[in-house]
């Protein structure tokens, strides 16, 4: 309401009214451009993010469990995590190009580190009492991982994934703006450069929904399959 009243007398290039934004949103959906952009963006994000989850958890488990892996990989992880990865984009353009695979790599590179770092922390901070139980009852190395260390790292891993998906969405938009203009990021760049502010805001709004939906989905997964996290929160040592 306030936005509508405040924006009504202003130049729509500076601040369009919410009604105008909504109208453009509907128009972009009905002519199909927004939908096809969503499909492009979504496939980049899902592919890059899925690889990040697999690599992040896999490598994270090895690093958390085996000191040798940690010694070898930790300097690189620290280095990459501290580097503003956006600066790698020109390099990636030179190496891989500007098309779909390059954009998937950007998503992967941004979402990997929080997942990896949290997995390592989760594996290392496994409840000592539970590990002792597993050892006492003769679980093998692999069984111990499956029955104790990995499940007890799940709260950490889920937090890492939540963080990773947010970073991945950023990577997706940046990749689409800086590389070949495509998907939602491409639309942001085009509408921004041509001062179509109301359309620009409609697309930005759409990317926000993207993030909210993913985080909501994660919450659903947590409640459905990991109910014990809430029930035992704070009681674990």
């Amino acid at each position, binding site marked *: 309401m306030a936005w509508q009243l405040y924006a009504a007398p202003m130049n729509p290039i500076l601040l369009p009214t919410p009604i105008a934004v909504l109208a453009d949103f509907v128009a972009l959906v009905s002519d199909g451009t927004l939908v096809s952009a969503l499909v492009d963006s979504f496939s980049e994000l899902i592919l890059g993010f899925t690889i990040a989850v697999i690599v992040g958890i896999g490598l994270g488990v090895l690093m958390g469990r085996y000191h040798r892996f940690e010694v070898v990989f930790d300097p690189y992880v620290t280095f990459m995590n501290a580097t503003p990865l956006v600066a790698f984009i020109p390099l990636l353009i030179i190496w891989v190009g500007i098309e779909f695979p390059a954009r998937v790599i950007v998503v992967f590179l941004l979402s990997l580190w929080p997942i990896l770092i949290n997995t390592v922390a989760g594996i290392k901070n496994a409840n000592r009492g539970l590990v002792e139980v597993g050892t*006492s009852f003769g*679980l093998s190395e692999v069984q111990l991982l499956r029955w104790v260390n990995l499940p007890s790292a799940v709260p950490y891993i889920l937090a890492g994934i939540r963080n990773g998906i947010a970073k991945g969405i950023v990577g997706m938009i940046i990749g689409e703006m800086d590389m070949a203009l495509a998907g939602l990021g491409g639309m942001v760049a085009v509408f921004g450069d041509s001062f179509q502010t109301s359309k620009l805001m409609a697309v930005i709004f759409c990317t926000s929904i993207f993030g909210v939906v993913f985080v909501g989905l994660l919450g659903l997964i947590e409640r459905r399959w990991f109910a014990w996290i809430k029930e035992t929160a704070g009681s674990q040592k």
Partner: protein
Amino acid sequence: MTEASTVLDIRGISKVYGGRSGHRGVQALESIDLSIREGEFISFVGPSGCGKTTLLKILDGLLPASSGRILFDGRELVGVSREIAYVFQDINLLPWKSVVENVEIGLVGRGQAPVERRRRAMEVLELVGLHGVASHPPYTLSGGMQQRVGVARALAINPRVLLMDEPFGHLDNMTRETLQIEVSKIWHRMRMSVVFVTHDVDEAIFLSDRIAVFDLDPGRIVEVLDVNLPHPRWEIDVPAQPEAIRLRRAIIERLELRKRVLI
């Protein structure tokens, strides 16, 4: 209990914590010698810090001893044994597994098939009266029920030696008394050797054939007492027996508990 054969032979076990470069470390246990007999119920009693839990964890292979040996059936014990099971003070049930899956954990370690595992786990759950909650998550159970699951988990592997580390320490008095009777009944039925750590003198007298009295600085056994009370104990008023009164006094005097009062 006359001349039963020895199942666990503890020979000169010592444990020093943090003894490194210049530091002398803390002597948690000093040359412990003790033979645990086949089928007996023995309790370790002593003040906190006397190393009774440390000894129990060494027996289970969870902690390495600084020196000394443990013989199981005359053979040196290395690492974790399949014939020894542990009931933990903190219980430590896996919250992401159901009650019955928690009971199966030792059978998983033995590589048993899932069907076989489940059958055996349900059998022991029935023994502790918890087959009705087999599929529940463990955190929905009361403290007493959780420790029953802890006991079932240990019994599932059909151990020859059952190590119990203050299993009822966190429970209220009524639940504790119920569980003492249950453990006593299970022991009568299954006749494995039980090593029971407690700081509750009455609990030790109620349950045991023998009581090893520990003292601290350094942690050591100062006396091993026989409990000459008839079984089954739940049918007699144990604390009122002259033998129980005598033992109680002997242990308290041995530990000079009055001298420990600091204020």
